[in-house]
């Protein structure tokens, strides 16, 4: 009797759509999940909900006109996006950027990295069910946005770093305020980490979850904190220094598996938190060493980039950002290809998901810290 019944009963996987509008997917990522009760059997990411044809647009704009578009890719790290693009064009043109501009660029890029990591800290805590860390993180992030607003007039999308230099100069009062802020921030982040990172519930939710092994990180071309979280000592600012990064003294943070395995969600969280301190170190050295002088190099009014191509990559808060720019010698680029780190990180999800609980999958998505504006471009 019972045998007959069980023969008739059959089980099948339940298909569940997570997103495109879902608070845990950080934007408009849709993941099609096949679940066996709470356990995920298969996850298929569907991208393109925020595809805005940036690469196609770039073929119709002049070289300067593309900078605001790069802002809108990773809207949480606009300064870093601009920086990479301008470096690529400057390398093609052979422009020399004044020392003061380089310092200002590094200051804003590192402050942006701090702001982006604070954003990660806040949203990741929300993903895992804690709301108040978000408010703490935003309090500190607000200071950075205010400084950027004073410099560029905008809070998120700056168009501040220009080809050849930066738009406006930073003044001594602002530098002083940044210095004071860094001291405050250092104390705060230590506090936040002890509040969240050392919390046993947080550790329970993140340690040994979503492990990315060294092998897997290389296979998928992971970069940035995801790669370093897997214990690999790789930071472009050290390994292939651009701008003036070789002059600064800072450490590359790698995941050590302090709370579980190397490469789990907690490690990636910890790498980002410690990177805030390294960024603070770099900004402090900048504040000491900043020189007087012009902020704009010599760039022709009508920008024509000589024929050729370049692949330039920089270290952004979420990983390496690469610009492949092909020029045919005209006023507009022939092709701009953006290598987005988030795009490659999303491709890891199908391998990370099987066997995870749905709630752990949310923790995994949060820990790779994607911004859909950059994934879809």
């Amino acid at each position, binding site marked *: 009797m019972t045998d007959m019944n069980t023969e008739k009963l059959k089980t099948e996987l339940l298909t569940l759509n997570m997103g495109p509008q879902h608070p845990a997917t950080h934007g408009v990522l849709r993941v099609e999940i096949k679940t066996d009760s709470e356990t995920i059997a298969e996850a298929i990411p569907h*991208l*393109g909900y925020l*595809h805005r*044809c940036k*690469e*196609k647009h770039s073929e119709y704009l002049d070289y300067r006109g593309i900078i605001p578009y790069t802002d809108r890719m990773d809207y949480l790290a606009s300064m870093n996006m601009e920086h990479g693009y301008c470096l690529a064009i400057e*390398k*093609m043109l052979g422009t020399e950027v004044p020392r003061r501009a380089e310092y200002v660029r590094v200051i804003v890029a590192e402050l942006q990295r701090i702001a982006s990591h604070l954003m990660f800290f806040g949203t990741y805590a929300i993903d895992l069910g804690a709301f108040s860390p978000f408010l703490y993180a935003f309090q500190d992030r607000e200071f950075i946005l205010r400084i950027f607003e004073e410099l560029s007039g905008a809070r998120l999308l700056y168009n501040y770093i220009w080809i050849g230099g930066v738009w406006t100069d930073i003044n001594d009062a602002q530098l002083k305020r940044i210095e004071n802020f860094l001291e405050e921030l250092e104390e705060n982040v230590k506090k936040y980490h002890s509040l969240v990172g050392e919390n046993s519930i947080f550790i329970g939710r993140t340690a040994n979850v979503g492990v990315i092994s060294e092998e897997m990180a*290389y*296979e*998928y*071309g992971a970069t940035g904190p995801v*790669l370093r979280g897997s214990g*690999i000592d*790789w930071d472009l600012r050290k*390994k*292939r220094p651009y701008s003036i990064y070789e002059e600064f003294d800072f450490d590359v943070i790698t995941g050590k598996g302090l709370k579980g395995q190397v490469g789990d969600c907690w490690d990636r969280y910890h790498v980002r938190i410690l990177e805030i301190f390294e960024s603070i170190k770099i900004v402090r050295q900048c504040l000491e060493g900043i020189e007087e002088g012009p902020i704009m190099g010599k760039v022709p009014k009508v920008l024509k980039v*000589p*024929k*050729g*191509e*370049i*692949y330039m*990559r920089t270290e952004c808060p979420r990983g*390496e950002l*690469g610009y*492949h720019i*092909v*020029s045919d010698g005209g006023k507009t680029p*022939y*092709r701009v*290809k953006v*290598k987005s780190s988030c*795009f*490659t990180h*999303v*491709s890891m999800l199908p*391998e990370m998901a099987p066997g995870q609980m749905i709630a752990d999958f949310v923790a995994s998505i949060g820990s790779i810290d994607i911004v859909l504006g950059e994934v*879809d*471009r």
Partner: protein
Amino acid sequence: MLNEIVTFLNNEVSGCNAVLNTAEVGDSSITIDAKHIKPACVALKNSSTFKMNVLQVISGVDYPETSEIEISYMLASFIENTEFILKIRVPRGDDSNLPSVESVCDVWKSANFLERETYDMLGVTFENHPDHRRILCGDDWKGYPLRKDYVVEKVYNGMVVDPEEKINKADIEFFAKMRLEHEDPTAVSGSWVDDHAWIDQDLSSKAKNRVAEVKAAKKAKAAEAAAQEKGSKDD
């Protein structure tokens, strides 16, 4: 380093015909025969000297003049700290006859999404790809947007994608009509600027005149009231 890779590839993969493109500006690259892309990638990854363990990005460029699509594989070794651009060129083909390249998904897993993007944007198919679909555009999208001869479709699923008139004129006309019909046109505010040449000039000038009239009338009324008040005070 590039010269060594060229020699290595020519020795290791017979017939791949590796050529070094030295660039005066920007990055140099290596071009190989499109048929040998996979063996070349396997050789580079497994080689003990180069250890190209990361495929960073696949970037395609369309060249309609030579009727070719150039695909660049940005390879890097995170062990040796080196990187270079490996290129292949395939004939462009057309919608019914898309160019085809062997997939390198077995070599690096990151190729999965990157090849899908190249297919989506440039219409290059990849043989033996495990999940060969579009990625950024919808599954029902027609054409390959990053090809140079791509024409933006007028209508997609019933939605007008590329309207002839990019500005909603109806809104601006509505603003003008409101000012003509509303009992107090000075209270009508709009963010639309109505001094463009293509607006119905008659309508907009009428609206402007009415606003001016009403404003003047109000002003006169206020002045009169003030004078009266003054007069009453004098009494």
